[in-house]
């Protein structure tokens, strides 16, 4: 799981004299939140900004010293269509997410995230050419997979409400066949009242011990390491718009194949084989625009990724945050993603392949549309959230040819609910 964020701050110490000295007690908690949000956006001298913020635009729990967040979600993949050998039923995942945030004095904020995911279902294994040459046959994993993934992430932010601050993170995750440890560092540095520089580094070490390795001829143990670096600039463009642009480089080395996938090559079924190194470059732009007359804001995110496996991808996401009165919020969003295929991908290989070959649908050329709707309601220090998401991927949405289309492309539905709560 990818973790670690620079801009998650949402709290200012309760005893901040600069606020309490200049505003009425009833508005002080809300203004503390505004200060924090302003700091997260790289806004210096945020106390003045907070005084002018509209009431009712804060998160319900944010003015408290300790915040507790919880989400429960159910992720359900559509049954696979077309010709299938094995169970057509795919993954179903129940996930619990907890987050505890606590201010440690005025100079630091500590948060602990715990996630548990309980997974069951079948997964695409390999693809066979159909006898009539008119299609593909997707072979699914023989037995229903059952696994539980647990992850713990600890994050410490120093000077969380200052324009310049450091974030340190560490995470560990565990599955039956997979363990991961990672460390991360991020820095936000105010260059001017209008401009904030962000940068950071992270390192992850993953250990893979595939299930039933001997019986199925899989590798018995493998590992991989990931190093990542990013840099960004955030601008205050106008009194209602901010823009962030940046790049991220990720270098992965080690066993990057999928030990559970096979591929049809020249009449044989062999193990999925990918290069043991991958360099991925990403460019990202994020734009936020407040529309005070509509009591709403527009979020626009774009990402371009290019890697040395010949995959290029584009992602664009549009979200609309609409306040409905003082306590309700509605957030619809729409996302489009498309990618080209890896140069060693094909659903199957009728002739001998090179050193590398994979029929993993995630390496094929395809596109995906997804839409999400989130409804939130505040009750004092509580805020409840429910949401639904629909994701649909297809080669027809992407740049690839139908002949190299992957029959295992995933579509899913997801429902979630939870709360945010703050106390002193």
């Amino acid at each position, binding site marked *: *799981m*990818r973790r*670690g*964020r*620079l801009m998650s701050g949402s709290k200012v110490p309760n005893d901040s004299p600069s606020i309490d000295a200049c505003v009425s007690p009833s508005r002080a908690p809300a203004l503390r939140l505004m*200060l924090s949000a*302003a700091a997260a956006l790289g*806004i*210096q001298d945020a*106390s*003045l*900004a907070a005084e*002018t*913020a509209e009431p009712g635009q*804060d998160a319900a729990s944010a003015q408290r010293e300790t915040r507790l967040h919880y*989400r429960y*979600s159910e*992720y359900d993949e559509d049954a696979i269509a077309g010709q299938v050998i094995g169970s057509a039923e795919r993954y179903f995942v129940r996930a619990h997410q907890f*987050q505890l945030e606590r201010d440690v004095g005025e100079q630091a904020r500590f948060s602990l995230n715990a*996630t548990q995911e309980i997974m069951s279902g079948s997964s695409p294994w390999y693809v066979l050419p159909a006898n009539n040459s008119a299609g593909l046959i997707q072979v699914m994993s023989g037995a229903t997979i059952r*696994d539980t993934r647990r992850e713990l992430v600890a994050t410490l932010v120093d000077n969380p409400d200052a324009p310049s601050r450091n*974030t340190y993170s560490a*995470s560990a995750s565990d*599955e039956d*066949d997979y363990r991961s440890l*990672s460390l*991360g560092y991020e820095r936000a540095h105010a260059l001017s009242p*209008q401009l904030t520089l962000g940068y*950071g580094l992270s390192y992850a070490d*993953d250990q893979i011990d595939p299930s039933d390795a001997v019986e199925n001829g899989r590798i018995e143990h493998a590992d991989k390491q990931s190093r*990542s670096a*990013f840099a960004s600039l955030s*601008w*205050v463009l*106008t*009194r209602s718009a*901010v823009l*962030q642009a940046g790049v*991220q480089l*990720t270098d992965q080395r080690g066993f990057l194949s999928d030990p559970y996938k096979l591929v049809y090559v020249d009449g044989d079924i062999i193990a999925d084989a990918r290069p043991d190194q991958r360099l991925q*470059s*990403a460019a990202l*732009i994020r734009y*936020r625009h*407040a529309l005070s007359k509509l009591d709403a*804001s527009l979020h626009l995110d774009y990402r*371009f*990724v*290019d890697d040395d496996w010949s*995959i*290029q*991808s584009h992602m664009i996401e549009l979200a609309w*945050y609409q306040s409905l009165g003082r306590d309700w*919020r509605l957030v619809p969003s729409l996302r489009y993603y498309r990618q*080209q295929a*890896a140069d060693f991908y094909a659903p199957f290989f009728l002739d001998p392949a090179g050193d590398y070959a994979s029929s993993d649908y*995630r390496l*094929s050329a395809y596109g995906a549309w997804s839409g999400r709707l989130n409804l939130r309601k505040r009750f004092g220090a509580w805020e409840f959230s429910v949401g639904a998401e629909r994701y649909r991927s297809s080669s027809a949405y992407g740049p690839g040819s139908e002949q190299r289309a992957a029959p295992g492309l995933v579509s*899913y539905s997801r429902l979630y609910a*939870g709360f945010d709560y703050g106390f002193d």
Partner: protein
Amino acid sequence: MPNDPRPRRTLWTALLCVLLCGCSSLPTVQPWERGQLARWDMQWQPDPLEAAMTEQVFFSKEGTHGKLGAAGGGCGCN
């Protein structure tokens, strides 16, 4: 078959231009004019837990990923 490098060159050049433009002067927005920017819904990521879950799903099910933040470890998701 390698991809045509021209589109990626164009995109990287465009991004560089955006970054360089950002270093030029912008009209100063005074602190007392920044109330709207301080709102909850103007944060880069207003709901971090929901963002973490969608990020995990996309990381598991799509061929590429990337973010402006420290990356974490991987998973055995397939």
